[in-house]
């Protein structure tokens, strides 16, 4: 007898908050709005904790079916929620980090005119994200998937009066649509071949199928299509382009959606579908390669970015790449582990970056920062913790998770991927410390405090009427309500990894190993080799730590010791540097290859050709014809009632005559 966990409450609580704030928030005071938003998202978090306590390992997986949704023949989809260790981890991460970011947002967004709107969207996002996580079938998951896309769109375009924000929202939406297309086709394939979308039934069917080692078959196609979806949502090559632009949204949004939670949905989905991927090694390989390439690629771009949030955005892409890399070598637990730690430190990074931006009055360009560590010590120290965590400084969270990933990659035999991984770790360390040095050390390079007030208002707020209520008397620390989440996340970034990859692996093993065909790399390690393996693992970890240290040194050298050096290097590299600065011209290439032909084709063929010459012309000509005919017969419509009667009588006579003639013939 499983206890009734009432899982549905968790997604529905934020939905209630979103509904209240969305419908009536305009009339509420800011205090009320934030109380509602925090109350409901906090309640969801408490509820998740309660479930963590209630749901001991024995009761998992727990399925809760609420109501049938679609019934068609044998095919059935329910409104059903599914809780196992995997979704439990995600649940805690999403509600916990989400709640912290809610708190932070109260401080960050206080000046905004769309305050209630922001929190309504944020709660709405929570609802969809939790639906995505707790869904017990792919269709419900897809609803959540689409829903977070919607919330993301709304939040990126939060300052919709700003052109760039509006188009960034559109871009995110459209690029995600491409990924969703793949996801959807995967769903159709599942319906066609398995007759169900329930996780349990699908995985049951898949377990009975042979592993597609040699040729690409059904499972490989499904896996690849799922990967397309995941790449869209989680910003992997080639669909990553929307994420950097998404930084147009408010910083808490970047932290919550575009770093901590939504973008990891792809990883979650791949881990959730691991049964399919385990039976399709080739698809898995694609996942690994895509992840690795993305990690490196994004890291190189990140090196040259000067916008503090853009750096973090590319860093996010890169870290997501790590997660996919882990999933690609069937080390799902490592991927999820990194997902969790990443949620902590990347969320923290964004929030701290937001705090920095807040401090310097809306400036996002790192070249105009510097020397901030004395002005904003809390932000500085929390950011430091996060930077150490992401670069993999030992004993910080990132050290464990990244080390775990690299070890698992290496032990699966993909040495090339491992090398790239280490290189990426080096680059990560470099650009993160570059950010760190540029922001907090050296001299302040921004404008004087006197005239930045206007800038702040313009950059952060679209509303012309938002006065700086708490006054910007120069560079200053953020209010407490923003700092508390920073501190909590910093603590988590430092200690969040100490759970350790192994224990995490064990915790997740009922989900990730129970019905899994044994794959070489993931087989339980034989006891005798463990010692040797352990030694190797330590060696590898030192390599990555060394790489991180090298990155730190280089950053220190270039941006602290000899600040003029980067210019010279850039000059020396010439064209390559330009390419990287322009993000490898990917956006331009996409524009040239996809967007322009599409627009041209639509314009020439669909618009001018079909719409104007065929559809419109048909309409116009028939209207013209009708008009001409009416013009000819309108004289019958004299307005004289008796004339009408005369016509009718004459017509009736004709009809009668015809009928009589027909009848008597």
């Amino acid at each position, binding site marked *: 007898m499983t206890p009734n966990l009432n899982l549905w409450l968790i997604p529905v609580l934020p939905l209630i908050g979103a509904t209240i704030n969305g419908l009536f928030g305009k009339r509420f005071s800011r205090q009320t709005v934030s109380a509602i938003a925090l109350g409901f998202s906090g309640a969801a978090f408490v509820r998740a904790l309660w479930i963590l306590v209630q749901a001991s390992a024995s009761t998992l997986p727990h399925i809760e079916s609420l109501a049938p949704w679609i019934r068609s023949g044998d095919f059935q989809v329910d409104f059903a929620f599914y809780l196992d260790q995997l979704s439990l981890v995600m649940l805690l991460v999403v509600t916990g980090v989400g709640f912290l970011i809610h708190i932070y947002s109260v401080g960050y967004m206080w000046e905004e005119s769309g305050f209630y709107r922001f929190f309504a969207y944020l709660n709405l996002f929570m609802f969809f994200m939790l639906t995505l996580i707790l869904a017990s079938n792919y269709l419900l998951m897809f609803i959540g998937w689409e829903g977070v896309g919607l919330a993301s769109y709304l939040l990126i375009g939060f300052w919709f009066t700003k052109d760039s924000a509006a188009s960034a929202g559109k871009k995110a939406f459209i690029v995600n649509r491409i990924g969703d297309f793949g996801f959807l086709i995967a769903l159709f394939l599942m319906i066609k071949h398995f007759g169900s979308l329930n996780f349990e039934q699908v995985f049951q069917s898949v377990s009975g199928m042979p592993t597609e080692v040699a040729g690409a078959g059904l499972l490989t196609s499904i896996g690849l299509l799922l990967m397309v979806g995941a790449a869209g949502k989680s910003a992997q090559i080639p669909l990553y382009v929307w994420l950097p632009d998404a930084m147009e949204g408010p910083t808490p949004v970047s932290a919550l959606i575009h770093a901590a939670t939504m973008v990891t949905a792809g990883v979650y989905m791949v881990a959730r579908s691991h049964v399919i991927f385990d039976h399709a090694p080739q698809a898995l390989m694609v996942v690994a390669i895509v992840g690795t390439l993305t990690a490196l690629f994004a890291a190189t771009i990140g090196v040259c970015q000067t916008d503090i949030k853009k750096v973090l955005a590319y860093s996010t892409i890169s870290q997501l790449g790590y997660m996919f890399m882990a999933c690609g070598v069937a080390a799902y637990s490592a991927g999820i582990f990194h997902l969790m730690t990443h949620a902590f430190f990347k969320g923290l990074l964004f929030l701290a970056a937001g705090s920095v931006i807040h401090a310097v009055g809306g400036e996002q360009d790192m070249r105009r920062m510097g020397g901030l560590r004395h002005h904003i010590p809390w932000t500085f120290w929390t950011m430091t913790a996060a930077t150490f965590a992401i670069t993999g400084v030992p004993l910080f969270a990132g050290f464990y998770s990244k080390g775990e990933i690299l070890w698992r990659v290496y032990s699966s035999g993909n040495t090339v991927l491992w090398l790239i991984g280490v290189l990426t770790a080096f680059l990560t360390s470099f650009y993160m410390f570059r950010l760190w040095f540029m922001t907090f050390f050296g001299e302040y390079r921004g404008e004087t405090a006197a005239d930045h007030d206007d800038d702040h208002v313009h950059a952060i707020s679209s509303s012309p009427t938002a006065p700086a209520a708490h006054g910007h008397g120069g560079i200053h620390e953020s209010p407490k309500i923003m700092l508390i989440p920073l501190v909590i996340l910093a603590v988590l970034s430092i200690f969040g990894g100490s759970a350790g990859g192994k224990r995490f692996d064990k915790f997740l093993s009922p989900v990730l190993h129970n019905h899994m065909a044994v794959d070489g790399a993931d087989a339980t390690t034989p006891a005798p080799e463990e010692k040797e393996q352990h030694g190797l693992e330590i060696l590898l970890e030192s390599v990555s730590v060394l790489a991180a240290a090298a990155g730190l040194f280089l950053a220190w050298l270039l941006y602290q010791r000899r600040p003029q050096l980067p210019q010279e290097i850039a000059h020396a590299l010439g064209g390559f540097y330009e390419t990287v600065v322009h993000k490898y011209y990917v956006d331009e290439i996409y524009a040239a290859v996809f967007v322009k032909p599409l627009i041209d084709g639509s314009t020439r063929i669909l618009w001018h050709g079909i719409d104007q010459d065929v559809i419109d012309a048909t309409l116009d000509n028939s209207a013209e014809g009708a008009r001409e005919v009416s013009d000819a017969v309108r004289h019958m419509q004299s307005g*004289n*009632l*008796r004339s009408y009667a005369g016509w009718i*009588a004459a017509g009736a006579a004709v009809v009668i005559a015809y009928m009589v003639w027909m009848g008597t013939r």
Partner: protein
Amino acid sequence: MVPLSYYLVLSGILFACGVTGFLIKRNIITIFMSIELMLNGVNLSFVAFAAQWHALRGQVFVFFVMVVAAAEAAVGLAIIIAVYRTRETLNVDRVNLLKL
């Protein structure tokens, strides 16, 4: 015993009178009454045919015609009142503009 066709001819005469009234009368109310006359003519043929074919449905149809006639009278007379208010005449020959 009366041949059915007598009833039908009577009905036809009434109908023809109605049509004629529509054609020659100028007063809009009288024209409207001509319509009622036509409906009555049709009703008679309904009842006659019902008797001929022993089908009560014919009589049921008469009720529908009556109800529709009642609805039509209500709306039609309301229209006549509205027309009279704006045109101050009941002569259809003077009500030949399609707008006010």
